[in-house]
């Protein structure tokens, strides 16, 4: 009897459609986000994450309506990320029906925003998304750096120190994406997942690079992640959520069936 490890399908949403790039390129269409979310809800997903990758103002309005539609039909926690820069952005998404928001580049630009957001809305709804890339080479001690702008822009910030700082400022959860792995399906970067999970007391969601069910198991057992996030393996029906849960359970991981 214990708290279940969570499986979180992630929907990258652009202009109201689910997309998922491979290494942030080669975008393929995977459908209406609300229909996809309902399918995952019926299959037993533990949460849903929407990442808005739309750049335009009109696209953002579409996202608010998408969240509203989702929230009146799906009754599991919903996290919304992408373009969250101000307390008003957070208020808009929470009012639309999101349970948590994920803050990414705005935390790098202005760390105090995380503190303000946590004070105003509570840590329980503030997820800080960290995109980390390994910068140490073979033979050096492991070092991971924070990147922004979809992995293109280095920040010079150490990923583990950054995660600790975010939690001190009020982050209630860390969504950790290992950038060098994302979309290439070699599994999570277990080193950085474990290092951050050990360094902070809040739950860690592992993200980036899932290609098979063993990767989910590795994320929990070796990476010590509290939740595992994946996109394309679910969107393209390579695996279903019940298959993933059954597999994890066989490997001794507590899941919600």
């Amino acid at each position, binding site marked *: 009897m214990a708290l279940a490890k969570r499986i979180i399908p992630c929907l990258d949403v652009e202009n109201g459609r689910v997309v998922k790039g491979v290494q942030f390129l080669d975008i393929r269409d995977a459908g209406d986000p609300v229909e996809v979310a309902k399918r995952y*809800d019926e299959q037993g997903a533990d949460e849903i994450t929407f990442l808005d990758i739309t750049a335009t103002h009109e696209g953002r309005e579409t996202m608010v309506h998408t969240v509203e539609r989702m929230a009146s039909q799906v009754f599991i926690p919903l996290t919304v990320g992408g373009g969250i820069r101000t307390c008003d952005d957070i208020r808009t998404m929470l009012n639309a029906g999101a349970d948590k928001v994920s803050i990414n580049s705005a935390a790098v630009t202005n760390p105090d925003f995380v503190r303000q957001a946590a004070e105003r809305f509570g840590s329980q709804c503030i997820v800080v998304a960290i995109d980390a890339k390994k910068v140490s080479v073979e033979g050096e001690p492991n070092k991971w750096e924070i990147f922004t702008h979809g992995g293109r822009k280095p920040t010079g910030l150490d990923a583990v120190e950054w995660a600790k700082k975010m939690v001190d400022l009020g982050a209630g959860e860390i969504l950790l994406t290992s950038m060098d792995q994302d979309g290439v399906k070699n599994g999570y970067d277990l080193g950085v997942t474990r290092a951050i999970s050990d360094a902070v007391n809040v739950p860690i969601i592992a993200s980036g690079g899932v290609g098979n069910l063993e990767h989910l198991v590795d994320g929990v057992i070796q990476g010590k992640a*509290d939740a595992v996030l994946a996109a394309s393996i679910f969107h393209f029906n390579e695996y279903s959520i019940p298959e993933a849960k059954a597999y994890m359970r066989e490997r001794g991981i507590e899941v919600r069936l």
Partner: protein
Amino acid sequence: MSTIAVIDYGMGNLHSVAKALEHVQPGVEVLVTSDPKQVANADRVLLPGVGAIRDCMAEIYKQGVDKEVAEAIRSGRPFLGICVGYQALMQSSEENGGVDCLGEFEGTVNYFGDHHKDEQGERLKVPHMGWNEVMQSGEHPLWQGIESGSRFYFVHSYYVKAAQRQQVAATCSYGVDFDVALGHDNVFAVQFHPEKSHTAGLQLLKNFLNWDGKP
């Protein structure tokens, strides 16, 4: 037409719980309100809440919600507390250096701790976030159609220990055994979020909407 007042005192996202109530009973009138008259006239009252207890209690007193809650409970109408709305019904909380609460239930709200561990010595993250098993302590109309051991969604760093054990309607385990549902007369209160707990959570809300307020 049955009406339910969801007390809005500025703490948290009330959209989810309102949508879930409308989903389980289409046609129910859900009033997200801070108006004492609307609360007094509703057939059922729900006290939600998220965030820090000090801020919640400050808003509860500032907006006179303490009187609305006391009146609703005394009136015998079905009353449901959720999350911090559950903790607020206890006598006091350790959070924010110690905060007095409404005292509708005897007992306290305690911190899991910064170095929380399970029986095997494995570290447990705080907040307690995610789906955990809720073990029912006995029969109650709000458990109808829900199996004991069903998982509900939690997110909290402080837990309730009730003094009157006969009021405990369910417990949960996370390094420590704690009380996640209390029931007394027309009052039921839960630590987890039924509005985010899929089938089991929606069933509980449905049971609340059908409940006559008798244990």
